[in-house]
């Protein structure tokens, strides 16, 4: 299909008044558009408990309209559950199966979402039906016992196409979560950085247009509406002619360049020239391939097999394009708003679009046809080429198996790492002291000393826990080890759902590492994976 055709369909549908579904989702469609919404609607989420934290996460996924969720939980609702979970029916739910009680109350939030309660245990499914897990998009594990969690994490890690696993731990005011994935590719990162306008190294038609503007003789009103891009390209061209082909380098030269811009004004209130002055640095700052992209290019396997992910093929073609085009990315074709009249602005827009179309043709010729990347994906990639991302993930628990890395992290981020260690120590303690079935009855709590001992075991023998930071975190956990506080659950409910949405829509950039949160002091921080 020709690009023109898809455009006309797009503008045709845009004229229709929104239906009820579009109206319902209007405020989120403005963030992730119809493509993101479609991804959400076809995803399947598995939560491995109906704890307050788990149902809070699910709530924030059901509301924006995921396709399906299953809660896997064999537990019977206790009085404690009924007290801190909004998606249980208070005392009426006590004694009934927690998953079966929570599912209808969650489904009530959005009748476009399908929910299922599965009352088997994770252990049981791991042993008897492990392929069950592979039918989901994202799996969420809140406070899952370490032995089962490790088994599940290993199962999912062994298969590159297995769902992402979000491990969530919380205890009292402290919490963390981690997303296990192999690789995560993002075309629409929604980066705040804009693609280069190539003012420093204009493509031919841009240079031609800039030189064709007769600044000295043109009508005075038009003069005040020449886009700053053309002013800068023109001024830099003239500057280079007089300076042996070089742009201004020293501070003084840059000031001189700015002075020439000021002298080009014919009236003191020409705002387009003020814009040119404010943006002058773009004329001497060389357009370069962003460093993130250079790293991605270097990491590409060479040669690339046809069966490699489409994103790898798109990157490889981009790499070849930059090699053939003096280190320039394809022109994105988007022009920001600037002081100009309609005619000159629209002409500039057309200029950039024409170049983008020409670059797209050159780019497509470099793309392996055997990779069969759909046209609309290529278009989207070219629009976002300057900010595409590929995250390299890690398996859950990798950090905890690397004492040296933990010690380094502790040195650089003492309170964040101490919080992570305290939560890991609690998980280790719980493995040794399985919790009683009924919360609050015959309960044993870990002492701060026990937890410190377990945390220290993860570190090299010669590294000590920092007294203040570790004391603060471990003391807080010893105070309320099994507390799933409503506000902490709601906080994690928002954070984890948001990251799940980023993983599912492949838009925006998800956390890569351990996102640690301390709601005593109200901070969050992310430790490398």
């Amino acid at each position, binding site marked *: 299909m020709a690009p023109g055709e898809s455009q006309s369909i797009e503008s045709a549908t*845009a*004229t229709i*008044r*929104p239906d*009820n579904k*579009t109206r*319902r*989702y*209007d*405020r*989120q*469609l*403005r*963030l992730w558009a119809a493509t993101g919404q479609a991804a959400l609607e076809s995803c399947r989420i598995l939560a491995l408990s109906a704890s*307050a934290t788990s149902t809070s996460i699910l*709530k*924030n996924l059901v*509301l*924006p309209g995921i396709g399906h969720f299953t809660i896997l939980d064999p537990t019977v609702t*206790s*009085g404690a559950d009924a007290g*801190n*979970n*909004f998606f249980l029916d*208070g*005392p009426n739910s006590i004694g009934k199966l927690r998953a079966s009680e929570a599912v209808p109350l969650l489904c009530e939030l959005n009748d476009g979402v399908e929910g299922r309660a599965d009352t088997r245990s994770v252990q049981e499914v791991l042993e008897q039906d492990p392929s069950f897990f592979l039918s989901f998009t994202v799996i969420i594990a809140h406070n899952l016992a370490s032995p089962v969690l490790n088994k599940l994490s290993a199962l999912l890690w062994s298969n590159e196409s297995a769902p992402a696993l979000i491990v969530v731990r919380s205890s*009292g*005011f402290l919490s963390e979560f981690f997303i296990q994935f192999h690789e995560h590719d993002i075309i629409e990162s929604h980066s*705040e950085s804009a693609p280069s306008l190539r003012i420093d190294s204009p493509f031919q038609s841009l240079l031609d247009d800039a030189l064709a503007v007769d600044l000295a003789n043109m009508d005075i009103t038009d003069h005040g509406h020449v886009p700053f891009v053309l002013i800068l390209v023109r001024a830099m061209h003239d500057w280079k002619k007089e300076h042996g082909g070089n742009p201004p380098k020293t501070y003084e030269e840059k000031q001189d360049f700015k002075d020439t811009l000021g002298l080009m004004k014919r009236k003191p209130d020409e705002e387009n020239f003020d814009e040119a002055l404010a943006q002058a640095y773009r004329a001497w700052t060389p357009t370069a391939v962003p460093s993130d992209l250079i790293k991605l290019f270097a990491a590409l396997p060479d040669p690339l097999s046809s069966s490699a992910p489409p994103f790898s093929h798109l990157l490889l073609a981009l790499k070849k394009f930059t090699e053939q085009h003096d280190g320039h990315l394809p022109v994105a074709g988007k022009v920001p708003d600037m002081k100009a009249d*309609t005619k000159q*602005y*629209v002409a500039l827009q057309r200029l950039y679009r024409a170049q983008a179309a020409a670059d797209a043709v050159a780019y497509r010729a470099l793309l392996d046809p055997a990779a069969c990347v759909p046209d609309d994906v290529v278009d989207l990639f070219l629009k976002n080429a300057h900010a595409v991302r590929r995250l390299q993930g890690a398996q859950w628990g990798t950090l905890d198996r690397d004492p040296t890395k933990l010690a380094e992290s502790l040195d650089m981020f003492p309170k964040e790492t101490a919080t992570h260690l305290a939560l890991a120590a609690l998980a280790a303690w719980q493995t040794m002291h399985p919790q009683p079935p009924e919360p609050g009855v015959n309960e044993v709590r870990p002492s701060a000393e026990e937890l410190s001992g377990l945390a220290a075991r993860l570190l090299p023998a010669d590294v000590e826990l920092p007294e203040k930071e570790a004391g*603060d975190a471990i*003391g*807080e956990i010893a*105070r*309320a080890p099994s*507390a799933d506080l*409503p*506000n*902490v659950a*709601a*906080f994690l*409910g*928002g*954070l984890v*759902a*948001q*990251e799940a949405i980023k993983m599912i829509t492949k838009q*925006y*950039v998800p*956390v*890569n590492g351990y*996102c640690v949160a301390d*709601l*005593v*002091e*109200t*901070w*969050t921080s992310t430790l490398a994976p």
Partner: protein
Amino acid sequence: MATIDTYADSGHVSVSDWDHRYYHVDQVLDRPGPRTDPDFIPGDAVKSFLRDQCKILVIGAGGLGCEILADLALSGFKDIHVIDMDTIDISNLNRQFLFRPKDVGKPKATVAAEYITRRVPGVTVTPFYGKIQDKDDDFYMQFNLVICGLDSVEARRWMNATLVNLVDPERPESLKPLIDGGTEGFKGQARVILPTITSCYECSLDMLNKQTAFPICTIANTPRLPEHCIEWASVLEWPRVHGDKKMDTDDPDHISWLYEVALKRAKEFSIEGVTWSLTQGVVKNIIPAIASTNAIIAASCCNEAFKIATSSAAYLNNYFMLIGTEGVYSYTFEHERRPNCPVCGGESVDIQVPKDWSVERLIEMLVEKQDIQIKKPSLSTPTTNIYFQAPPQLEEATRPNLERLVSDLVPEGGEVTVTATTLPFSLSLRITYV
């Protein structure tokens, strides 16, 4: 074993707490943590204050408000009041989780209050369907804490100023901590304001994102963006064609009209990108909103309310900012008071005014300046009424002054008092001429 605690609530509902109801929350109320204030006394007294005595007010029953009400109820607050002047719209349902399609058109405060009261036994949520300005000081004085979950800057400024004005140094209970939350897309912030003690909402006005305003000459003569065409349709064409008939941005027929007109203009100027959704977004000034960001910010607000009410942990000092577009980035810091804050500072604001400025030009500056932003200001000196926006007779009488020079009306170093009907405070400017 835990005891069953039966009590009468407001004399008409009787409910029982069940065994282990507060198993989770009680873990942080039965013991202090390493960072807990040594004055914290764990146990029954603090639980009884939270559950039987503390009275909390929630402003807004929308995106943040729904979340706040649920979080407070589960945390153990049992006497909750909520104010909201809005009714439920279908576009609220993607995040305001206490509302269902059948509730569209009903008042948010009432529906939210009924839902929470039904779902969380023993909690009473008292709704008020109306404006915060309808309530007087006595009303606000009855609460221990106030949480604001609003999207309107004006309403927050009013609430903030009202709580600052309420403080009577002789009566410590007149100081009502204000917890304020706000979100926009993946971004948000939560803050704790102790009126007259910490930085207030007005102190941080300059942190707000500046709204993009399109110059009228661009809209009229040199449109470049689809937004310019939409503004042309709504600002210039609507009044020209429809005269006095008011534009209703909630009426899809009106949006359709604007869309058609904007689209025609865009075609004329070869501008692409006018859509129905963009038209609606521009004229309603729609801010993207999602459940997850609201959940995060509401939870941090309620967590602070819980910590303040129980002293079980130190509360936020005083600003938590979250950006969720790239990973989870947050920043916790102390926002400083502004000595010349018109609400909590008391000092007058020094401003420099060019000698040739008219009163009208000064007013324009007051509307635009980031740390002032007073829409429709009225100006006076101790001896002269410079310009008053209302009542009509006074407006008419002072209108000629708009064209006069400020320097003819105010001496060097003189003070000008600025007021606005929407704000319960006045700003005092000290003028120097340049």
